[in-house]
C-alpha cells in the first residue's frame, strides 16, 4: 500500500495545480501571460532570498493566529475573532513599546507579553460569555472584531497619533522593543521564530501536557469532562483567552518586527485566513506550520504576480480562493480514494 503514503503529498499538489490551471485561463482572458505570472510566483515567493523572506514575514502572523484558532477548536470553541485579537495584541505591545523604557532583554519580552495579554483579554470576553452565559461565541467574536478595529482606528487617530503624520499611525516604538531582522536585508524578523516557538508550545500543550488532555476532553465531551471533575467553564475561558493571546501575538509581532508602530488595518484578514489554515490542518500543529507557510506564499505571491505586471489582482484573489477550495476538496476525497485502493 504505497499509495497510502503518497496520497497526502500528491493530492494537495494536484489541488494546487488544478487551481493554477483555472487561474491560467483567467489570466489569459485578462489578456496577460500566465507563464510570466507563474514563473514570477514560484521563483519569487519560494526560491529567491528576499521572496522567501517575504513569505516568512507573512507566515508569522498567520501561524500565530491559526495556532490560536486551533487551540480553541481543541476545546470545541470556534474563535472567529482572530482579527480583533490581532488588533488588540498590536495595541498592547505598541503601548509597552511606546511608553515603557527598558533594556531590550526586558523590553522585548515585556512587549510580547503585553501583546499576549491584550489579545487574551479580547478572547476572554467571548470565552466568559460562552462559558458562564452560554452566548454563542461565533457571534461575539465576530462583533468584537469590528469593535477592536474601530477602537484602534480611534486611538491611532487621536491619543496615539504621531504628530504631523499624514495618516493615522503611532510614533515609532522604542528601538529596545523592536524585534531583530533574522534574514539580513530582508523583512523577515524575529517574530517568525517566535511563531514557530508558539506553535511548538501549543504542540506540547496539546500532545503532551495534562492541560492539553483536559482541553481535548472538554472539546470532545463536556458532560464526561464535568463528570470527571474538570471545570468545563474554566477550561473554556482559559482556552479562549489563550487563543486570543496567540492571535494577539500576531499583532505584537507585526508591530515589533515589521512596522515598529501601531497603525490602522493591522491585519489584512490574517484572522480569517487563520480559520482556513486551522481547519485545513485538521488538528495537526505541523499542518499549521506548513499551511501557514503556504498561505504566506500565496499572499506574497499575490504581490509578486502583480509586480511582474502579468496578472491583475482580481485574478490572483480568485486563484487564492480556488487553491484553498481545491485543497479542501483533496483533503475531503483523500480517505475515499484510499479506500478504493
Amino acid at each position, binding site marked *: 500500500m504505497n499509495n497510502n503514503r503518497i496520497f497526502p503529498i500528491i493530492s494537495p499538489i494536484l489541488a494546487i495545480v488544478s487551481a493554477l490551471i483555472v487561474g491560467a485561463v*483567467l489570466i489569459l*482572458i*485578462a489578456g496577460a501571460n500566465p507563464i510570466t505570472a507563474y514563473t514570477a510566483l514560484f521563483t519569487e515567493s519560494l526560491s529567491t532570498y528576499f521572496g522567501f523572506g517575504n513569505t516568512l514575514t507573512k507566515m508569522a502572523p498567520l501561524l500565530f493566529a491559526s495556532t490560536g484558532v486551533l487551540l480553541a477548536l481543541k476545546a470545541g470553541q470556534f474563535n472567529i475573532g482572530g482579527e480583533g485579537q490581532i488588533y488588540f495584541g498590536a495595541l498592547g505591545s505598541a503601548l509597552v513599546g511606546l511608553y515603557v523604557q527598558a533594556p531590550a532583554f526586558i523590553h522585548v519580552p515585556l512587549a510580547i507579553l503585553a501583546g499576549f495579554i491584550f489579545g487574551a483579554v479580547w478572547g476572554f470576553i467571548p470565552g466568559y*460569555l460562552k462559558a458562564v*452565559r*452560554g*452566548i*454563542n461565541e*461565533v*457571534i*461575539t467574536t*465576530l*462583533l*468584537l472584531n*469590528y*469593535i477592536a478595529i*474601530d*477602537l484602534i*482606528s*480611534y486611538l491611532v*487617530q*487621536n491619543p496615539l497619533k504621531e504628530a504631523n503624520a499624514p495618516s493615522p499611525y503611532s510614533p515609532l516604538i522604542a528601538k529596545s522593543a523592536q524585534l531583530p531582522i533574522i534574514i539580513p536585508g530582508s523583512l523577515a524578523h524575529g517574530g517568525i521564530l517566535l511563531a514557530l516557538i508558539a506553535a511548538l508550545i501549543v504542540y506540547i500543550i496539546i500532545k503532551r501536557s495534562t492541560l492539553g488532555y483536559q482541553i481535548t476532553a472538554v472539546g470532545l465531551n463536556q458532560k464526561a469532562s464535568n463528570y470527571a471533575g474538570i471545570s468545563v467553564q474554566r477550561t473554556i475561558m482559559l482556552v479562549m483567552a489563550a487563543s486570543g493571546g496567540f492571535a494577539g501575538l500576531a499583532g505584537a509581532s507585526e508591530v515589533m518586527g515589521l512596522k515598529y508602530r501601531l497603525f490602522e488595518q493591522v491585519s489584512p484578514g490574517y484572522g*480569517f485566513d487563520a*480559520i*482556513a489554515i486551522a*481547519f*485545513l490542518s485538521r488538528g495537526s500543529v505541523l499542518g499549521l506550520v506548513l499551511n501557514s507557510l503556504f498561505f504566506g506564499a500565496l499572499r506574497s505571491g499575490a504581490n509578486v504576480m502583480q509586480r511582474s505586471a502579468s496578472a*491583475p*489582482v*482580481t*485574478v*490572483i*484573489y*480568485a*486563484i*487564492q*480562493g*480556488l487553491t*484553498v*477550495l481545491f485543497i*479542501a*476538496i483533496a*483533503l*475531503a*476525497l483523500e480517505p475515499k480514494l484510499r479506500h478504493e485502493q
Partner: protein
Amino acid sequence: MNNDFLTDFLASTLRLSVPLAYAAMGGLFSERSGVLNIGLEGMLLTGAFTSAAATFYSGNVVVGICAALIAGGFVGLVHAFLCVTLRVNQLVSGLAINLVAGGLTSFLGRLIFSGSTQRLPLVPAIKIPILANIPIIGILFEQDILVYLLFLIIALTTYFLFYTNPGLNLRAVGEYPSSADTAGISVTLVRYVAVVTGGCLVGCGGAYLALVQINYFTEGMSAGKGFIAIASLIFGRWHPIGSALACLLFGATEALQLRIQALGVNIPYQFLTMLPYAVAMIALIGGMGKSTPPAALGVPYERNSAGKNI
C-alpha cells in the same frame, strides 16, 4: 425631531436592513438544513455583480434580479456539492467561496464595466394606496418590489418552516439527519434544495444592493454585510422573524449612528461606526444571549454512522 426625520430614519433603517435580511434568510435555509454557510458575503457579491451585469446588457431590472437569483443559486449549488456530496469542511468551503467570488466579480466587473459609468435603469417604487399615506410608517409602503418580496419571504419562510411538511423535513435534517433518513427523507436532497434556495435569496440581497440601493456595481460592495447577516442569524436564533429583527437592529443602529454624525455631535466617529456592533453586543449580554444552533450544523451526514452520533 419632526416626522420627516423619523420617516427618513425608518426608510434608511429599512434600506440598510434589506440586503442583510435577504442574506440572513438565505443563510437560514442553509443552516437550518445543517449546512454551515459562511459564504454569504461571496453570494451577496455574486448577486450584486450579476444583477448589475444582466441589467447593464438587457436594460431590464427584472432580468437583472432573475440573473442574481440564478447566480446566487448556482453558488449555493457549488457550496452544496462541496459540503454535501464531497463533504469538504463546510467552513473552508464558505471562506473559499468568499475569496473566489470577490476575485471573480471584480475581474469580470472590470472586463464589463471598465471605463463607462454604469447607468442602470431604476427599480420602480410601488406605492400601496392608503397605507402609503399613514404618517411616518407610510414609507414602508412606498418601496420597490424587492422589499415587498422580502416581507413576503420572511412570512413565507416562517410558515414554511413551522407549518409545512417540507419545512418539518428541513428542520429534522438540520437537527438529526439520521432520524430524517430513517423516516424516509433524503438528507442529501433536502440539503441541496435548502442551500440552493438559500443561495437564490442571498443573490436577491445582492441585487437589492446593486440595483436598488446603489444603482451600479463596485468591487467588494458587499463590504462585510454577509458576516453581519451571519451574526443576525445567530442573534435571531435561526428563526426567520428573530433574524429579520436582528437585521433590523443592525440597520437601525447604523442609520442612527449616521444621523448622530450628521447632527454634528462631538464624538469621535469611530465610536459611532462601532455602534451597531456595540449595541448588538450589549443586547446579547443583556439577556438575549443564548442561542443553540441546529444540532447537526457543520456535520456532514454519513449513513453508516447512523445512530452513532448526530
